């Protein structure tokens, strides 16, 4: 019985740990499918975590915090898009700048606002959303249906994006822009507009992930609290082969690794905890080694588009 309880708890918390990574990874999937690499997710998530916390306290609602976080994420991503797409700066360089900028902005911003007030006020968390009927199911209900709305939203988003890319004209156009922008341009598709859209969406999603992390999962903001999840999210995109549903699976895998390592720390206190903390990152490296050989990335990824006219 204890084993069942343990496993149910592990599975449920795997979903919760996966959520921030999932949002960031799905946003990055869209950006990369359109041909833009944004390695600055870490910075955007940090700003999202900070802005979400402050926004939630100021507006008195976690949803207010989420909206403010997404707006800030889009602003940062907009900067990335401006540099990469309009000024054709190297996408990696701009992404690295974004990490540094996001780290600085969030840490400094936190001290200027709530962080400077002694004991920071608590943000109102997202309420748990039980689904009538489903949540009461044994085991399945406990694992899948006793979560906060953002967990459901993240999973729904993965399905929605998979459908969007496959079945809509915009999805087709975004795929074309990421594979062969010259062909898309010749077919009359606005390459830059599609790319701007996808990068901004990616920024909003990364910030939403950060917001969930601070407001909900941790219940407060700490400097550098994202601690590598932005990079894990990029690994998820590669591991998920740029397909939203596979990216969802990858995020769940990393969520499970994270949930497991915390429990293992408690079970085996005699083993240095640092070994367990490494787990998600070891999984990331192992996963990338597995898929690296068979991976085919969007052909125009990372390359600026220069129209031939």
């Amino acid at each position, binding site marked *: 019985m204890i084993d069942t309880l343990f496993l149910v708890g592990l599975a449920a918390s795997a979903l919760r740990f996966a959520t921030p990574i999932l949002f960031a990874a799905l946003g990055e999937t869209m950006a990369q499918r359109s041909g833009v690499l944004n390695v600055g997710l870490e910075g955007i998530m940090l700003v999202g975590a900070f802005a979400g916390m402050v926004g939630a306290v100021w507006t008195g609602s976690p949803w207010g915090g989420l909206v403010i976080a997404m707006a800030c994420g889009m602003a940062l991503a907009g900067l990335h898009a401006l540099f990469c797409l309009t000024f054709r700066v190297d996408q990696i360089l701009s992404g690295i700048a974004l990490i540094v900028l996001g780290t600085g902005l969030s840490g400094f911003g936190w001290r200027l606002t709530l962080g400077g007030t002694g004991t920071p006020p608590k943000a109102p968390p997202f309420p748990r959303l039980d689904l009538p009927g489903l949540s009461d199911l044994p085991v399945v209900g406990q694992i899948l249906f006793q979560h906060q709305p953002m967990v459901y939203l993240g999973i729904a988003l993965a399905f929605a994006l998979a459908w969007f890319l496959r*079945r809509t004209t915009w999805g*087709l156009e975004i*795929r*074309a822009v990421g*594979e*062969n922008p*010259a062909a898309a341009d*010749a077919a009359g598709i606005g390459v830059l507009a599609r790319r701007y859209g996808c990068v901004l969406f990616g920024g909003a999603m990364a910030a939403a992930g950060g917001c969930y992390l601070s407001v909900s999962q941790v219940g407060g903001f700490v400097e550098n609290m994202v601690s590598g999840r932005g990079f894990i999210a990029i690994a998820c995109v590669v591991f998920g082969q740029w397909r939203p549903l596979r990216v969802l699976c990858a995020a769940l895998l990393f969520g499970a690794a994270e949930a497991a390592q915390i429990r293992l720390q408690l079970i085996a206190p005699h083993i240095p905890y640092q070994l367990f903390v490494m787990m998600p990152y070891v999984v990331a490296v192992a996963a990338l080694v597995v898929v690296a050989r068979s991976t085919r990335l969007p052909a125009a990824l990372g390359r600026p588009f220069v129209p031939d*006219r």
Partner: protein
Amino acid sequence: MAALLELRGITKRYPGVLANDDVGLTVAAGEVVAVLGENGAGKSTVMNVIAGLIRPDAGDMLIDGRPVRPRSPREAAALGVGMVHQHFKLVPTMTVAENIVLGDYRAGRLLLRPARNAARIDGLCAELGLAAAPGTPVGDLDLGARQKVEIAKALFRDARILILDEPTAILSRQECDQLYEIIRRLAARGVAVVLISHKLDDVFAVCDRVYVMRGGRVVGERRVADTARDDLVRLVVGGTLDLPRRRTGAAPGAPLVSVRDLALRRPGGPIVLQDVSFDLRGGEVLAVAGVEGNGQAELIEALAGLLPPATGRIDYGFLHGRRPDARRLRQGGLGHVPGDRHGMAVLGDLSLEANVMLTHFHMPGFARAGLLRRQPAASLTEGLIGRFEVRTPSTTTAIGRLSGGNQQKLVVGRELNHATRVLLAAHPTRGLDLRTIAFMQGQLLDHRDRGGAVLLVSSDLAEIWRVADRVMVAASGRLRGPVAIDEVTVEEVGSWMTA
């Protein structure tokens, strides 16, 4: 016939170049018109004006007698202009059907509606003779089929004016004939076709009229039926074209390269060529004919020291028994003009000078104690630009910014410069205009007359007959020949190619 498309006084000036000067042309519905000219004659500018990619400085474009000014490919498409680009604008990972509907409103407003267009796409594929299913990824198709997808894309958008940019440059003989047939059928259906080309064959195969451009101006307009080939050639080059002649009678010298029982494979791949034995002698041009992809590329790479033989041996008289590798061969006087220019011959982002230095830095005088010496490379580059008429702003321009023909001239010049003994040349004249082709062939013959050896890989039999002394044919994994060119006919060699 009333004109469907008319250009009047189109002028486009770029800094330092008058790309189009008062260009006028008309095309009627159901007519096939060629725009013929050498590289840099201004054909692409005309085409880009029609396709909405370039806005002219002056002049008018009329469709159905009404003035129009398309400002983007999309606006041009809405006016009924369809464009088939020389470098196909297709997304290889997407299917035939997806590529055809891409960017068109009929694909669906927000949701893709594959079922709604399926019948139409099937009809277009059938009309164009495209065998592949609409669900096949375009990347799996051969070049001829990809071109049909490009045409289907234009027709899907109800193109009434179809512009084809150098459509036969990458097609095989059979594919060319198929394309001509398609063009005739489209014209019969009332489509106006503009065919941009520098090949006379295209003009005589399908065109009703031809406009000849030179130096940005239209220098002549002819009805094809009333025109002789020589007349067109004179118009294109602006004078008579001196075709190089092979001087006969000179006795070939000693073998510079001896190939015995050679078999070749790509690393990890199957054997592509076997039982190859021949001598390449000083003072001769030995041609390798054949449909591309029959091991010619591997043979050239093996001779250049880049691909180790699977079995058999290659002996180089001038190496005196030392192990052949690419560096030693070059120092020994071997030049190599690869068929894949972008992949193997030039670095597009580097300057002309640096590209010349790339194959010369290990030659005496170009470096001292490991330090590059710029002066010799700069003056050599200057010399090559002059002798080979490379059109470039300067020796420090990135070579990728030059036209393909000008890049090729520099590459051939560079390789000839240190090929004191052997020149390996794969498709050295592909994609070049008539005047440049004649010039290049002359250079090959000069090298031969100086006592050098040329191994020429070409899929153009006319070229082989003009310059080669002996010919071999690559087909189904073997090399036939070599035989002296005077002892065979074009037909015989053609039949070996497909045997």
